[in-house]
């Protein structure tokens, strides 16, 4: 007999098992673990502390009862609007790397393959993402799409960004499990943009990325989410940062009915740093839930987080930031800030800093603020002839730009400006 809580998981497994490809790139032990976790723990409900504001079990029961797992073929025309001129564009279509839609790699020091490059026991997949830690890691591991493996060679500073487009086009309600493994060898540097698009029917995108940043390496990554009203997603990043290295991410949520981001960074090498930034502008009945974990395992490292949300309509925003400073992680500097604007009476923001500190010589702080739009500033602008609508746009843009300005790819920044302007 199966436990009550795993009924949803069982249903998912049953309905997609027959249509899923046999996954050869994840080793058998990991596969077994993943399935076992799903069968015993199930899909989290709001009773699960980490999913308190994001009842995934309910979402699956209501929105993803029947999974068709039928997809439209993605064409060049479909992906064209999301390619960036100044980048190497790679496409993951309905969960699988589509080499035919991707740019040819002519830059030295980059290896791009599908996940079949990894085989058997030596596969690094799941080395940074344990199925025992989260149901969505387990779900992805059990039914992973054949995503992308990127390796940047030692000491290679890649002069142009890589832009990965994850695009889904379901014929009918479906679940997609895109996955990648990004490895920066020692001394390598890369700017990575990851864009999430849905052009088909209702789709649940359960994305999982493992990112290994070796010593002296630097990874600057952008996550741009625009999956629209038919898009539901869990976006999990499992990052490991080596010594003297830098990992930065800026996540901007432009749309998506439900967006859950799990951004987990393990700071495993001394003298490294990591910055996480987030921006979400929500409306309607959207739910955007950002969970971050900064796991400081070693001394002399720095982390900084800035998450900003503007909540309109009946939507909900969540920021839960956990900073974990282990016993050995002396001289840690860890900061966290969550700033929010409530634009409507029916919107909700839940923000929670969680500091667990086991070292005694550290600097850690957090701050959170939630308020309405600044009435004094609004009046000042109006007193200069600027109308209500433009004045609000100016103030919201000012609020958002603190995060949006982190995006250093010009064409992407321009795109964001246009899209954000529609949301103000």
């Amino acid at each position, binding site marked *: 007999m199966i436990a009550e809580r795993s009924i949803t998981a069982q249903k998912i497994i049953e309905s997609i098992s027959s249509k899923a490809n046999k996954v050869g790139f994840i080793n058998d032990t990991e596969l077994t673990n993943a399935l076992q976790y799903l069968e015993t723990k199930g899909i989290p409900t709001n009773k699960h502390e980490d999913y308190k504001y994001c009842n995934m079990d309910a979402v699956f029961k209501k929105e993803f009862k029947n999974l068709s797992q039928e997809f439209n073929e993605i064409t060049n025309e479909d992906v064209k609007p999301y390619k960036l001129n100044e980048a190497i564009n790679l496409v993951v279509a309905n969960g699988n790397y589509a080499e035919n839609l991707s740019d040819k790699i002519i830059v030295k020091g980059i290896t791009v393959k599908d996940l079949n490059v990894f085989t058997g026991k030596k596969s690094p997949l799941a080395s940074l993402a344990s199925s025992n830690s989260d149901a969505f890691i387990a779900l992805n591991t059990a039914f992973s799409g054949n995503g992308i493996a990127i390796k940047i060679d030692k000491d290679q500073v890649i002069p142009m960004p890589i832009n990965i487009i994850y695009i889904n086009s379901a014929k009918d309600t479906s679940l997609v499990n895109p996955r990648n493994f990004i490895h920066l060898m020692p001394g390598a540097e890369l700017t990575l943009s990851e864009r999430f698009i849905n052009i088909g029917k209702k789709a649940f995108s359960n994305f999982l990325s493992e990112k290994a940043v070796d010593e002296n390496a630097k990874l600057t990554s952008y996550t741009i989410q625009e999956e629209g009203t038919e898009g539901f997603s869990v976006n999990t990043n499992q990052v490991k940062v080596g010594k003297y290295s830098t990992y930065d991410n800026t996540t901007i949520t432009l749309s998506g009915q439900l967006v859950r981001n799990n951004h987990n960074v393990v700071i495993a090498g001394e003298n490294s740093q990591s910055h996480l930034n987030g921006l979400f502008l929500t409306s309607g009945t959207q739910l955007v839930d950002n969970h971050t974990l900064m796991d400081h395992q070693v001394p002399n490292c720095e982390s900084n987080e800035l998450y900003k949300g503007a909540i309109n309509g009946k939507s909900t925003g969540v920021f839960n930031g956990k900073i974990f400073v282990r016993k050995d992680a002396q001289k840690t500097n860890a900061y966290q800030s969550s700033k929010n604007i409530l634009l409507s009476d029916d919107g909700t923001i839940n923000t929670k800093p969680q500091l667990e500190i086991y070292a005694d010589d550290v600097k850690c702080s957090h701050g959170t603020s939630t308020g309405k739009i600044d009435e004094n500033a609004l009046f000042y602008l*109006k007193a200069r002839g600027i*109308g209500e609508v433009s004045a609000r746009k*100016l103030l919201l843009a000012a609020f958002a730009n603190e995060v949006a300005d982190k995006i250093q790819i010009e064409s992407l920044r321009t795109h964001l400006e246009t899209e954000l302007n529609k949301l103000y």
Partner: protein
Amino acid sequence: MISIKNLHASINGKEILKGINLDVKAGEIHAIMGPNGSGKSTLSSVLAGREDYEVTEGEVKFMGKDLLEMSPEDRAREGLFLAFQYPIEIPGVSNINFLKTAINEIRTYNGKEAIEAKDFLALIKEKQKLVELDAKLTNRSVNEGFSGGEKKRNEIFQMAILEPKLAILDETDSGLDIDALRIVANGVNKLRSKNNAFIVITHYQRLLEHIVPDFVHILYDGRIVKSGTKELALELEAKGYDDIKHQFEKTQG
């Protein structure tokens, strides 16, 4: 230009303005003086359209139109300008973007096309000189990190750019050293013409040595209790506000 009749206004149920009457014609400079708490800043806030205040009685005609019916932005678009006593800092909004938006919204309201980029830049340059504002400040966020004097100069700079018909200077002299005061006053003097008018609200006579008013009014307890020419300001400076208070209380008694 502006005609204020029997204006009463209150905040949180407390009456601050108790029947103000004032007529300002084109080409005139009026000074309004008065002790703290007499209602000077309330008057400027009510005229600019701050919603915290409730107008309970009276009327204000601006260029023949009912000012109190208009939104704050429409008052500005019709040519009313308030130089704030405490200019607001707006992080993230650049002065340039702010001014361009303001100019264009005013132009659209008045049926004009948006300003050309080169004309806008020329305008900025010209007016910067007028108020001796550091060009670097224009590229920064609105008033963010500005010193007290820089904020006040930025107000006059904005005024110079927007060229209002009626400008109300709300204690623009407060917190200014003598050099900044001179710069601000010079700005106003260069901008005054027979087609515009100024209401200068001040606590001290000092500013009026530099901006010479045609009329001086003394505001006390929500009313204009005395009006005269520029000599009234000197008289006030010599005798202080206590004299006014005594006289006023005698007439009330």
